[in-house]
């Protein structure tokens, strides 16, 4: 199981400002190790974000997202105290779900 995500969610006016840092190697499958063997691709493929029980964001990502991905996004109509649930799945089937509360 991968390390937990760091999620920061704050209200700015009527919009929730959410940033998430995921801990993931994001191997492209292009890189070679010291012995010259190709390092197999290992990257987050799919991301979902639910705020207050509603799906607000659904993302598909490829290996060109940087190592330890950071995503920032905004949700209108959310309110302080709403629960933010973020989930990712990678191309090997590993997954991780973390949650935070909008402050």
């Amino acid at each position: 199981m991968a390390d937990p995500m760091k999620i920061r969610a704050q209200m700015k006016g009527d919009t929730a400002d959410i940033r998430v840092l995921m801990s993931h190697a994001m191997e492209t499958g292009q890189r070679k190790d010291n012995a010259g063997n190709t390092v197999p691709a290992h990257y987050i493929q799919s991301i979902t974000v639910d705020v207050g029980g509603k799906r607000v964001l659904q993302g598909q990502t490829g290996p060109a997202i940087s190592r330890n991905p950071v995503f920032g996004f905004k949700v209108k109509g959310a309110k302080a105290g709403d629960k933010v649930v973020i989930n990712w799945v990678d191309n090997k089937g590993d997954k991780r779900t973390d949650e935070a509360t909008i402050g």
Partner: protein
Amino acid sequence: MDAFRRTLLKGAGATGAIAAALAAGVLKPSQVLAAEINRAAFEAKDIAGALKGIGASGAAESKDVVIRAPDIAENGAVVPVDVASNIPNTISLAVLVDKNPFPLTSAFDFANGAVPEMALRVKMGQTSLVEVVAKTADGKFYIAKKEVKVTVGGCGG
């Protein structure tokens, strides 16, 4: 020539579908998310193929699709890119890097009050155009492009 290319693209799509089926077979149904991964688009090796894969061939250029990225990125492994769409009813944004081995980096769908705006960090193999495609609820596509220079080797540009 064109017909040949299309066959190639079709071939690539079919392989992708098999891979998708295999992956789906490994996963338990509860692990599979609502959206299918668009493998044809993610595995396209050129920008035209990637745009075709997301259905955005012939997207109109628009100034209302905003890309905020550095003019010069010293580290191609981490290029911060902020994208936003000021077009009403934008439901989806895709970020592509023209000269990457696989140009499509990511695609996001927005719903239930999510603002069509994303901050993310992408990898760039070399100096290239960053292209952002916005899709509206009525199925129209709009595109914006910005060049980002990548200085590899720490010369500091």
